[in-house]
């Protein structure tokens, strides 16, 4: 580099920094207010490989993001996020509302030969999506270290074949393991041990401000348009004296069909109208509603809420679905659940089996 050039460069650099500091003092930004990005992988043969979902993800904070932890903080089988920012609100915690609706498997490793952490172990999980690989990393990204228990999504698969390459290079084929469970695998020991993790749930702001009505209230009455035609009154739909599960859903809702498929199974062998679906859709456009019900095999009674009824349920609160209401024999709401996860199934079954005193 020429001396003159170097001189220009040096002067330029200190002028640059002074100017940056001065501008910051005046309140200017430097690549500021940028969104954190979420790119969703679209599957093997898709082109392009990813779609940018940032603006509709809810994890696109604009507070100068630095690091992120991918971790399942409530042990419900999906990755939540903890994000660090440079300034102001420096810690953000994001609850994953959708991951639990698919199957998953979690692998918890304990090393023997290259340290107990087993950092550097590669885990391969084979399912219908192919063979996913993850490395148990002792730190990656920027200033970050993720959940050491490796979580794999399995989509609709209910089991997967698992293979570990331990840091020593030795390969252990563990065989086929069942989904929706956490498996502990120890180096040089055969097989995998089922780990019984405590289960819980992170605060759900959606559920907290879910409805204009709350637990203990009576479900508002009203007349509904039947999906198959005609109209019916709530008191006919939910006769007093027995318990009911009321599923609020919408034809545009992505998770809803998974719960509806389950509810359809549950409805068989239950009393009349044990399960009722109320769709939050345009009552004049029922084709989509019927199609979604058909796809989900939902043959329990289904009606469409009127605009007035939607207003009574949600008030000024934004409409969010799925919401499942457990209605006691006296017509009061016993529980409100938002979202859907397979682990909720047992709760719903118990509710229908129990009787009100």
């Amino acid at each position: 580099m020429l001396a003159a050039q170097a001189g220009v460069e040096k002067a330029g650099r200190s002028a640059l920094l002074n100017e940056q500091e001065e501008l910051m003092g005046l309140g200017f930004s430097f690549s500021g207010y940028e969104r954190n990005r979420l790119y969703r992988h679209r599957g093997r043969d898709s082109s392009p490989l990813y779609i940018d979902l940032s603006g509709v993800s809810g994890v696109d904070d604009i507070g100068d993001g630095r690091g992120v932890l991918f971790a399942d903080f409530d042990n419900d089988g999906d990755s939540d996020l903890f994000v660090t920012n440079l300034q102001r609100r420096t810690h953000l915690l994001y609850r994953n509302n959708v991951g639990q609706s698919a199957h998953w498997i979690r692998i918890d490793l304990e090393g023997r030969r290259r340290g107990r952490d087993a950092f550097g172990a590669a885990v391969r999980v084979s399912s219908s999506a192919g063979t996913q690989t993850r490395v148990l990393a002792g730190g990656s990204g920027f200033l970050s270290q993720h959940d050491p228990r490796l979580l794999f999504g399995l989509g609709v698969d209910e089991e997967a074949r698992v293979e570990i390459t331990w840091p020593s290079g030795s390969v252990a084929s563990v065989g086929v393991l069942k989904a929706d469970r956490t498996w502990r695998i120890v180096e040089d020991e055969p097989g995998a041990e089922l780990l019984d993790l405590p289960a819980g749930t992170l605060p759900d702001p959606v559920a907290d401000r879910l409805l204009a009505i709350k637990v203990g209230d009576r479900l508002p009455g009203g007349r509904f348009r039947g999906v198959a035609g005609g109209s019916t009154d709530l008191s006919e739909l939910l006769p007093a004296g027995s318990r009911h599960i009321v599923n609020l859903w919408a034809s545009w809702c992505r998770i809803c069909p998974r719960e509806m498929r389950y509810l359809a199974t549950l409805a068989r062998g239950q009393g009349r109208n044990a399960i009722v679906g109320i769709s939050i859709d345009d009552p004049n456009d029922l084709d989509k509603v019927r199609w979604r019900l058909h796809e989900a095999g939902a043959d329990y009674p289904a009606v469409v809420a009127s605009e007035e009824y939607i207003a009574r349920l949600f008030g000024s609160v934004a409409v969010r679905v799925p919401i499942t209401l457990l209605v006691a024999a006296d017509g009061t709401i016993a529980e409100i659940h938002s979202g859907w996860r397979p682990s909720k199934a047992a709760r719903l079954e118990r509710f229908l089996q129990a009787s009100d005193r």
Partner: protein
Amino acid sequence: MIGPVALSALCLLAAVDTLPSPAPIDPRELDRQEQATESLANALLDLSVALRDGEFGLLGRAFLPGASVDRLPLPEGELGEADPWADRRIWAGGSEEAGGVELFIRSARDWHRDMGAIDDVRFKVKSSSLIEGGTKLKARIHYSLIGRSPDSRREWLRGWADGLAAANAEGDWRIDELRMESASSLRANAELFSEIGAPAGVADDLPPFRWTEGVEHGAAAGDLDRNGWIDIVATGPGRPHVYLNQGDGTFADKGALLGLQDHPRATAPLLLDWDNDGDLDLFLSALGPVQFYENRLVPEGALAFRNTSDRSDTAAPIGYSAISTDVDRDGYADIYVASYNRYARVFPDDWARAENGTPNLLFVNRGDGTFADRSREWGVDDRRWTYAGAFADLNEDGAPDLYLANDFGENALFLNRGKRYEDVAADWGVIDRGSGMGAAFGDIDNDGVLDLHVTNMSSTAGKRIIARLYGSAPPPLLEKLAAGNSLYRRVPGAGFENWTKRSGGLAAGWAWGGGFFDFDNDGWQDLYTPAGFVSGASMHDT
């Protein structure tokens, strides 16, 4: 006066020997172009904020009197599913009627009437050129709207506009003509994530960042008390936070009760069981002495940390990301520290191949709970400006290899050759020259082989200036400096192949950490990237 952005570009040009020179544009001309563009860009940011907040009376300020302006696009119809998680809507742009600023303002009111909520609006100048003897600026403008549709689904509209600007009497550049093209939006069909920091008890507030004092803060996840719940250690301006997961959806910050001292210059926490006793010990990387805290859960039965730093060689002056694996295969986890340098006090000696960073450190675990820096012996006392790294055994020889993301230059891929590391980044195709900030291994094609994600800066202003200097065929090095994140697919026996283009574009702005996770558990690993450099009180960008 030369603007800071133009100045950055000039510094870069002056510093990089390998670039074709001289730059094909007079620096004063570059500055004229950028001054006008920045003036317009900031007027458009004010317009964006006013649009977002529904301050309709302020919208006119972005325009010259008598400007010819299209209305904003309005939703026209559904395009069906764009993704399992989002539908696409088409928004019609342009105007059948010739309109002025009033038409634009009216359509802004329509946006506020038709959307359930508007969270963000951005108009950005992606490219521009002075025309008609420098009296007019022709600008290609990208805009976005983020909010909720009336049924409360998150919606994200993106589109393009062509603008023509001129200076007003005060010398500020304002829009004289604006033509809005049709656009499309994504509309979520589920509430994917909810931010719950405050109700969960992990919220933290820091004062606005100061250039000369600020420190970057990191975090680590692990089950510190072995109760089955994942806890969080996060560094901050004083004592590190230890957010213990209470199992009821909340966290309690117990840093003070667990024996941690104040470490205001701490950057990255790292959790590892360095004595193989079954609990997670804590290493703290810092701009200053690094810290070792031994977890006393085993054998004492209760979580508590004891500072054992004085037993180890901890002379590191600077530490950013810290990563761990058993480098020397003795059965004890070792620690590698990315050292970078004190930016703002020290400047890179070359903006594209800097080698005056502080040497990175390799703390080899002696097996007795003490550590010694062996970076020189292992050949990894690298003096590039390393922000982060990641370990994985890429050639499957049972020895961990090391990838480093370096700012102001080339990244490194160190293969573990037994007692020494060897940089093969060039041969393996992963030099990834640029502003390396973070690295992570994952699987992009589910072929059972680890692939690589590297975060780099992407910059609207940077791309604009590079295009100004070199048109549509900039030198690859310069183009790469503002291009964004990279994705590399591992081909066993043949290094890596670059899949960035196939990814569909990963220009995430000023990108930092992140990497692979499968948020919807569909069996394909998604990518997440925290981004943004420094937000000042004003959105105006330099």
